């Protein structure tokens, strides 16, 4: 696990929002999903995940509520709001341009 990296600055919100697109999920689930889907390359530390979640919540891009999860435990579930969906679209468009741009820069001429 040595070649995994802290999330690139500015992309954490994008990762969290897109992870929530399929449906509601709690914090631990989000961090696990990001790790698994990135093939253990992208690691989101709890120290940045939870502040990000709360920041997104305060911007009303996601909504949080306490629900009972599997095995009867209460957890704080996060859901994408309509506003969050729009923000995600904007972020995704920006990300695609960004990737193309970076690729253009680093591609051998």
């Amino acid at each position, binding site marked *: 696990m040595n070649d995994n990296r802290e999330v690139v600055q500015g992309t954490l919100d994008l990762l969290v929002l897109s992870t929530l697109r399929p449906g509601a999920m*709690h*914090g*631990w*689930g989000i961090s*696990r999903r990001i790790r698994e889907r990135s093939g253990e390359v992208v690691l989101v*530390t*709890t*120290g940045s995940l*939870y*502040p990000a979640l*709360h*920041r997104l919540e*305060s911007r009303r891009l996601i909504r949080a509520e*306490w629900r009972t999860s599997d095995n009867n*435990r*209460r*957890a*704080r579930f996060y859901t994408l709001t309509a506003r969050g969906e729009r923000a995600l679209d904007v972020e995704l468009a920006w990300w695609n341009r960004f990737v193309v741009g970076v690729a253009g820069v680093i591609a051998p001429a």
Partner: protein
Amino acid sequence: MINKLRSGIRSLFTRSDVERDLEDEIRDHLDRDIDDRVQHGVAPREARRQALADFGGVDNVRERLRDEHGISIFEDLARDTRFAMRRLGRNPRYAMLIVLTIGLGIGAATAVFSAVDGVLFKPLALENPDAIVTLWQTKLAQNIDRDDFPPATWLELRERTHSFTHVAAANPYGVSFSEGSSTEHAEAWLLSEDYLPMLGVKPHLGRSLEPRDFLTGAAPVLLLDYGFWQRRFGGDVSVVGRHLRIDETSTEVIGVMPRGFELPEATAMWRPWVLDDSQRQDRFSSYIRVIARLAPGVTLAQAQSELNGTAAALEREQPRSNTDVGFSVIGLEEFLVGARRPLLFTLLGAAGVLLIVALTNVAALHLTRLTRQRHETALRAMLGARGAQLARPLVVEAALLASFGGLTGLSLGWIGVRVLHSLGPADLPRLSDITLDWRAGLVAGALAVAAAFVLALLPLWRLANLSSSARTIAGHRHATRGRRAVVGAQIALGLVLLIGTSLLARSFVAVMSADRGYRTDHVLSFTVWVYDEYPDGAKRLQFVQRVLDRLIAAPGVQSAAMGSALPMADAITGEAADVVPPGSAGLPGEERSVRGTVVWPTYFETLGMRVLSGREFTVTDDGRAAPAVIINQAFVRRYFEGKDPVGRTVSVGLMGRSIERLVVGVVGDTRHSRLDADPEPAVFIPWAQQPLASLTFIARTSVEPGTLGPTVSRILYEIDPRVGVARTASLESLLDSRVRERRFLLVLLAAFSASAVLIGAVGVFGVMSQAAAERGREIAVRMALGAAPRTILGEFFAEAGWMTAAGLIMGLAVALVATRVLTRFLFEVAPFDPLSVAAAIGIVVALALFAAFLPGWRAAKTNPARVLQDS
């Protein structure tokens, strides 16, 4: 096992209400992580270690989450508040003392501010009130500076002057107001057409007077006063449109004026004034109150100089009426409240002194306590608390104490305003307007903030010196000296207030016990006006005789009399009499004015006035007999210089031409309008020789005079339902209203000085207790070595004595200057009356020594063995 781990993790968190959500979420995350690892075969203990490690520091995350939510500042504040509350809770007496002291200071200041603000500073509820002025006639040769106008002169002013946009007039025209089976007299003013429009006052209810109400033959209408409407109609809005019986005429109520509208003075109603021709030409009867609005850009001085020119012109054209008559202009606001300024500013000063005493005492108490807490603060500093961490709880504590103090102050201020309402002089303008409004709240708030600064800056200053001086003996001495100086200053200020109070108290006693020359107990009086009901003297005489007969026949009445005026009654009923001194040629301008009263023969006896020589009037002193006059001692002193006046003649004119009258008797002096002024010269004329229509009846009673009011109303109604009864009052209550201002000032100053002196005593007590605590060991050692308790107690008295003596000297110096402001309120007492000063010093010394005695006694009773064992 896992549960145990969970509870272990749970114990990592202190559960606070604010953070519960965050904590739960973090814990949930950790639980899931541990479960996950355990399911993957990691040993529970190791799983927990890994989970915590991966989490990256629970505290760290929590801090960042708290930052994200911005709760940390409030959290800190909440923690500091809890801490401060706990500290104060440990010493509730101290907290109470500080809160009460601040509260007293702020309460007094707030209440007095409300009064000063309401009376002096709030603008009058008029359109551009600064331009409204009052106009007066002056007759300086007769020492009259504010006389009313005859109607013709008012009309001349309105025609000739250009300094004013309007010159409006009001005519006092009391009415009888009948309701059911009683008729009462009500104060009323007739207003000129432009009066209300000029002021820009809109009625509270209904409509104002309109031009159509001033047309000859218009339906009679009236506007009600707000207070009268509340008292007589219970604030019933349906009264507008109703018809009242006013002077036997059905008159429609068209509106109610706004609360606090009291122009030209407090009254019951206003009606339109339609001048008739005789009024238009009347240059001699001065009864019109004139008010005007300055034209834009015109100053008072310019208006005055134009009036001077007009007066000179009128003097040339109308020498008969206007010789020596001048005009003056006084701003309305100045006219209304000018005379009250000294009273209010004296109160404001006294409240300010109390506030200073309160705040310095709070500072002294606080310093004492801080000294005691030196150890705690030092300990916390050693344990690594940083400067801000040390300071913050102290600041929060200060803020808490100050807020509670401010709230207490507001409550006390609220009570204080009630007291002002019930005690205030009835003629204090706008007294009913005084409320504890947002401005007073602002003052209380500002003072609380000031208190918080005092409380907070002191410990911070101490904190800054913590490492150096405070621990050394020199530093300690320094602090002690500072406290003593503060206590000395408090004693000084307390003494100043106390001296003022005892001066006023002595004056009050002197006024109340001054020989007034007539009795005030068990005397009832009331007034009727019968100009229209009984125009001729013979019928009037019959009316008076019938009223007197019925009064004497009434149960509880011992004797009855009548006169045109009463000692202490309002100016309206007192008349100025022109006197040509004996032996004088009676040149114009040499007339002198004295107080003149026409009286029924039983007048002197009923009022208990002494006849010193000659005789009283009898029923034979009537229109057919030779004109007679009775004079008082002051008159004898001024005009007869030691000669026996009885049998001589003096020329007296009362509301008419002067005629020669034979002096038949001399009566004792009486104090009239001002109880605290020297008696004025006065003449008394038999009513039968000059039957004036303004009749004030007096009844001496064997019962409480106030209980006879209904009887009087019934008797008068039965004799003549047209006649309204006015001003039914006992002489006691009239006397009471005369001394109201004096008592008002006395009571408030007494309350302030009592508070200040008590606070000062608490200060002495605090400092001495502190000394006792600090010297506990030293005293114990000395007593173990044989020092007598008496010696120890003596030392405490000596120390308190020095503080008190220093305070007394300072206080006397200040009082020497400060009591001068009271001069105008003093009566038969010198501004630095030795007895008053001695009494004040006695009270201060007694209280200070008592405050020193308690801690000294405790110290002297110490058991040396126990103290030494403890340390």
